């Protein structure tokens, strides 16, 4: 169910306008607005507790903001369920790896194709006829992702046995299997060593190039953010304090203060 409308690179894919999110009395996000353009890598950064993950959860419909509007592909919505977001082409990975530990890499990535399987339950039950043909099609796509992420050697290994860096890669694979238009990555490099981070950076850039995917990511490693992203939005205590290219953000006094701390 790919949406019909084609959005050219550089056009606005998603915009967040004056969003406020409250949990009881706690304001997680206050009046934040920014946009994501087609084909860019957009980073969301900020100190711990700045509301970055909440922002991601708002974008993919997991949280519903009390105020503000979200426009995705030109359609404005107030509330959206995560599975609707998924069918519309928004995929994500999680800060803490959320895979099926007992299933193989291959099966985990196949899960990402679920929304694209349309054959009847009857055929699926017997894994026969049209369902089998369909599965072969999807398997082909998944194999391309496995090749893309260079995880051939762990194709059949249960994910729970893999080191963390590889699990992160499998998770990215599962998100890619959805052929997303917008990919949300929540700290894709957390807990990785230098080499794994470099690999991950390469995969993210290759994803953008090969599949034309738009990427929004949360990341703490400033080196990575500055290298990868086209534009950066900075949050602090749920408030947007800066928005612009990495260079602009880097030299913004508010950002420096937020990260280094100032005497109040």
């Amino acid at each position: 169910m790919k949406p019909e409308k084609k959005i050219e690179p550089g056009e606005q894919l998603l915009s967040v306008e004056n969003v406020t999110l409250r949990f009881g009395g706690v304001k997680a996000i206050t009046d934040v607005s920014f946009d994501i353009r087609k084909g860019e890598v957009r980073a969301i950064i900020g100190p711990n507790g700045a509301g970055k993950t909440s922002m991601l959860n708002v974008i993919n419909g997991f949280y519903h903001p009390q105020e503000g509007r979200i426009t995705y592909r030109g359609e404005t919505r107030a509330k959206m369920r995560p599975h609707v977001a998924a069918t519309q082409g928004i995929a994500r990975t999680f800060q803490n790896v959320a895979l099926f530990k007992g299933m193989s890499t291959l099966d985990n990535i196949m899960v990402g194709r679920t929304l694209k399987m349309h054959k009847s339950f009857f055929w699926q039950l017997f894994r026969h006829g049209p369902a089998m043909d369909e599965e072969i099609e999807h398997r082909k796509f998944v194999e391309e992702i496995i090749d893309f992420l260079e995880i051939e050697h762990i194709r059949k290994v249960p994910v729970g046995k893999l080191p963390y860096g590889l699990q992160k890669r499998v998770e990215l694979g599962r998100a890619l299997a959805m052929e997303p238009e917008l990919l949300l990555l929540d700290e894709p490099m957390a807990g990785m060593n230098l080499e794994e981070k470099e690999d991950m950076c390469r995969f993210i850039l290759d994803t953008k190039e090969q599949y034309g995917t738009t990427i929004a990511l949360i990341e703490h490693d400033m080196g990575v953010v500055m290298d990868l992203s086209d534009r950066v939005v900075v949050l602090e205590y749920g408030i947007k304090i800066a928005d612009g290219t990495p260079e602009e953000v880097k030299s913004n006094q508010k950002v420096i203060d937020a990260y280094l701390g100032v005497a109040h």
Partner: protein
Amino acid sequence: MTADATAGLDTFPKWLEHNAKVRPSRPAMRHKDLGIWKEWSWAEVHRTVRSYALGLMAHGLQRGDKIAIIGTNRPKLYWSIMAAQTLGAVPVPVYADAVADEMAYVLDHAEVRFACVEDQEQVDKILSVADRLAAIQMVFYDEPRGLRDYDHSRLQPIDEVIAQGDATMLADPDAVRRLDQAIADGKGADVSVMLYTSGTTGRSKGVMLSAGGCVNAAKDTVAFDRLTEDDQVIAYLPLAWVGDHYLNYAQALVAGFTINCPESPDTAVEDRREVGTTFAFAPPRVYEGMLTRIMIRMEDAGALKRNMFHYYLGVAKKWGEKILDGKSVPLLARLNYALGEALVYGPLKNVLGFSSVRIAYTAGEAMGPELFSFYRSIGINLKQLYGQTEAFLYVTSQTDHAVRADCVGPATPNVEIKIADDGEVLYKSPGQFIGYFKEPEKTAETMTPDGYVKTGDAGFFEKDGQLRIIDRAKDVGKLRNGALFAPKYIENKLKFFPNIREVVAFGQGEEHVSVFINIDLTAVGNWAERNNVSYGSYQELANNRQVYEIIAGHVAEVNRQLAEEPMMAKAQVHRFLVLHKELDADDGELTRTQKVRRGFIAERYAPLVTALYDGSTEADISTEVTFEDGRKGSISARVRVMDAKTFEPVAPAASQAA
């Protein structure tokens, strides 16, 4: 296949034509891609290579030009070699894991005009040193990922070159005529390939091998090991190493068998299992790694399986080698062994991907006798060969029923060997090199006046006619007290312990022998897990007191063995230390073929060497390390030095009396 039909085939392009004619539909090559094995018949390979050659011809590749081949074992890179040879150009395979600097040296020295590479990684390396490479005109690549936005003025996908050639094939009969002429013009005396040595001693040298020599050598060993078009090999050895070019490329063309390219270097074991290799080669460390992994996994198995495994390994140890060698074995033992085959050896060989292996070789380094026997005892026909790049691999090889762990076999057919007065092994072989590229003085140094090639290894013949290699001739030295010091001999004895991965022995002109040790992270890490020893890094584990105790035990055991050998008894290890980092080729400590560079290590770790001899119990060291992308960092550590237990030399007679 009659002798007449192949008699005139003195170059590999002619063999390719021959195979396309004689066995057009037999599989020549397979490659696992996207989880599925793709297959190309000899006819298909022949046609593709011709198109590829036409494409390269249009780019101006001419007879005698050098063309670099860089990457892992992929069909398109093998075709690049074939296409280059078709035009009479000289392929120069380069180690894919070489850092940009090393690569620049080889590409520059070989004066390559073109390069065929695997992917973005290799393209990046070449681009990063492009300013030093005046001769290079075009780089062709296999895997387009990540290269879309690159400047393509000097960059082109291999597929496109082949497609251009396809078009030429139809449109330009004149070009096709020139192509056929180029194949016909190829002579046995032409340089067929240039392989750079691994550089155990300094800069690597370009070894020029002749087409006729390569073909003749391959014909000899194909006959020796009775290889046919039904054989299967898995190509996972570095393209730049003589072993791959010989065992896979040359032998496949001459015997007509199938080269299987694994999906990625990491999947080679799994892929070998899937294709059912019949002819296998691996350096000792690979066999060792496989055994270590099996043993570790068996420790985790249930008691029943574990006991069964150990019981039948015992049976195999007792009878397996005898059965393999065709000696007489009691019927009951045979039956028990057959049961073991069904319960243990068969499944084990299946896991290793050795179920269909008819011949397996190992070479490059000494292999522990126990390790060697293990594989033979479960029914794998593992043999040793001895060779070097200058010989186009084979100098000696063991025949099927005369195999021993400590020797490398008699001379391969048509090879002559003699031992020089100083113990150095000399040979003449059919595949013998033409010379080093642009270094005639080094070629002259390597040859004796009567045309033998010096191997640089010291050795002697055993009574049964098998050659035994002790060490590099120039490394065999003396301790201060005049006792013989053969560093590699000691290093190998220690390396036979699974816990020890690498050893560097010192002692030339010193009071006694002492060693640096690298522990094996898999084996020792597993021990640590079992014994609740926590560690955060290799460095921490290496410095652990209990680990030192284990290693001390191994050193003492080696000293006990040395004490029983009259020649070596005085060269026991007196002191040792466990290095804080793994020796690595990227830091120049190992060669690309994983041999230790003793002199370089001694310089780099000078404070530690001093500590080995001044009696201190600890030493500080700080070393620079190179990451894979070429950046540098440093590691510093405090390393413990320990005394080893030594033994009184025992004469063999005396030990019997005692």
